[in-house]
């Protein structure tokens, strides 16, 4: 069963990068996994390596040591272009600042990641996803005509357009007030179950922890157990 398999797995991951003359070790041997239908939240103080870890899980960066597997495939040594293909087919992203394209309507923004696949028309799925996040009447609105919460719901719909295995959420409620955050989190939780997708979130928001299945705390590049 797919549920039993770890859809994303980090194994002994070390990430070092150069910062000026110094070499910074952001992650010092991290093991991590997430399963289908599971929401895992990574917490920790600033500079603990949360963002670095999310970048590695999101295949935006590669580890210095250790390995990364997605859906059972070791992607550690994939080239940049191969990682792009993996992100395109298996991952979704939700950002703190929403990052919607201002000149596109809600439905065009949701459709955007799949626009370059001319073989499939995802417009119907885009509309359906927007209806499911309660924006069925805002399809042709541009981002500036939407509230913060509505924008983040568009972003959530966008992250699901390619039927991903994992959705990465970087401070998904960071720019929203408490009530809006709550609705967004309820939305995410529902979609997580409906789409059977793993959600990996990074946050400072205590409220998010109520909705999460598992919390991983990162301190100084190591996971606290």
């Amino acid at each position: 069963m797919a549920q039993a398999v770890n859809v994303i797995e980090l194994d002994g991951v070390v990430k070092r990068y150069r910062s000026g003359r110094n070499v910074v070790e952001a992650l010092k041997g991290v093991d991590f996994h997430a399963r289908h239908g599971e929401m895992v939240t990574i917490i920790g103080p600033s500079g603990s390596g949360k963002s670095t870890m999310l970048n590695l899980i999101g295949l935006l960066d590669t580890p210095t040591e250790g390995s990364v597997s997605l859906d059972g495939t070791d992607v550690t040594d994939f080239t940049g272009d191969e990682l792009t293909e993996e992100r395109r087919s298996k991952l979704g992203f939700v950002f703190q600042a929403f990052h919607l394209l201002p000149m596109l309507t809600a439905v065009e923004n949701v459709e955007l990641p799949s626009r370059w696949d001319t073989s499939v028309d995802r417009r119907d799925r885009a509309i359906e996803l927007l209806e499911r996040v309660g924006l069925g009447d805002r399809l042709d609105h541009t981002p500036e005509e939407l509230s913060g919460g509505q924008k983040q719901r568009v972003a959530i719909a966008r992250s699901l357009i390619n039927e991903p295995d994992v959705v990465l959420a970087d401070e998904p409620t960071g720019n929203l007030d408490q009530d809006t955050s709550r609705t967004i989190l309820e939305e995410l939780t529902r979609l997580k179950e409906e789409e059977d997708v793993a959600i990996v979130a990074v946050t400072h928001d205590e409220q998010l922890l109520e909705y999460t299945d598992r919390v991983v705390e990162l301190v100084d590049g190591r996971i606290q157990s």
Partner: protein
Amino acid sequence: MSFRPLRRFPSVEIAWQNLGRNRVRTGLATLGIVIGVVAIVSLGMAGAAIQQQANTDLGSLTSDVIVSSGADSDQDGVTDAQVDDIRSVVVDADVVPQKSNATTLTTRSGERARVSVTGVSQADALYETSAGEAPERLRSGALLSADTAAELGLELGDPVEYDGTLYRLRGFIESDDGFGPGGDELVLPLSALSEQEYYDTVTIVAADGDAATAIADTLEAEFNDEDEEILSVQSFASVQEDINSFLGTLNLALLGIGLISLVVASVAILNIMLMSTIERRGEIGVLRAVGIRRGEVLRMILAEAAFLGIIGGVVGVILSLGAGLVLFEVLAGDATLVFGWESSRYLLYGFGFAVFASVVSGLYPAWKAANDPPVEALRG
């Protein structure tokens, strides 16, 4: 605004939508291109108009071959036999032998004018008249330059005297405002100069400059060799070639000036595209994060640059066409000549250069945006 026909080309469609985001910037970038195109096209067209005008002015001169006695000839002129020989070699052009002299015309009122005298039979082959006629065979009467006639107050039918004989004026020679023979000239029947045994010159009137050159070459080969010049053969086609080559250089120089302005415009586009991609760095990072390939981002930015070139090119071509109409009206006196290939091709060149320069200017920003690591782009 969505542009559905481009649905199959998402990079192009998104690029089109991106252009609408900052209209002022798009407008300024386009304006640069418009100026460049107008500069190139109107300077090119000005060159074409000057060239066309020069060709009209040179007119018949360049299609004439003038034959006179050569340095190694036994006679002081061209003989009847040689004229016959020329006629046998030159088939499809008029061969007009002439004798020439000079005289002073005096009117009853005492006005005097120095004129050159040409004795010729086939007057119509050489002269156009503004009044009266130039007969095919001039046996009696005379033609006089219109300017001289006006100066002397002579009218058609008035007599002029040459060598003790009176000739009635049958026509006035149209003064040629171009190059070539002209000025004060009195044209008489050959018989008037019968004291001269030989012809001074033989004019061969060819269809055009190329035919004139061919005839000149044939005559050279027929009558002369390396050591001996029996007949001196002059063709002015080479003059036209020289003038054309000069005008060609002038044209290139004008185009060069136009190109500079297009280069300036493309530097502006480079700057604007670079600014725009830097400004959108995070956004492009998001595109890369959600799985848009490097090549797709590259095409998107290039398409944006190409759109700037196309829009600027179209507007530039329309404005240039207007400028061209005015130019040709002023320089060549006929605005519709602008549609001839000689000048209209600059519209095509201008447009082509505009698109080309814009795409080239977009290459670096596009490459930079496409190869920016998404992690860096998202952070910045």
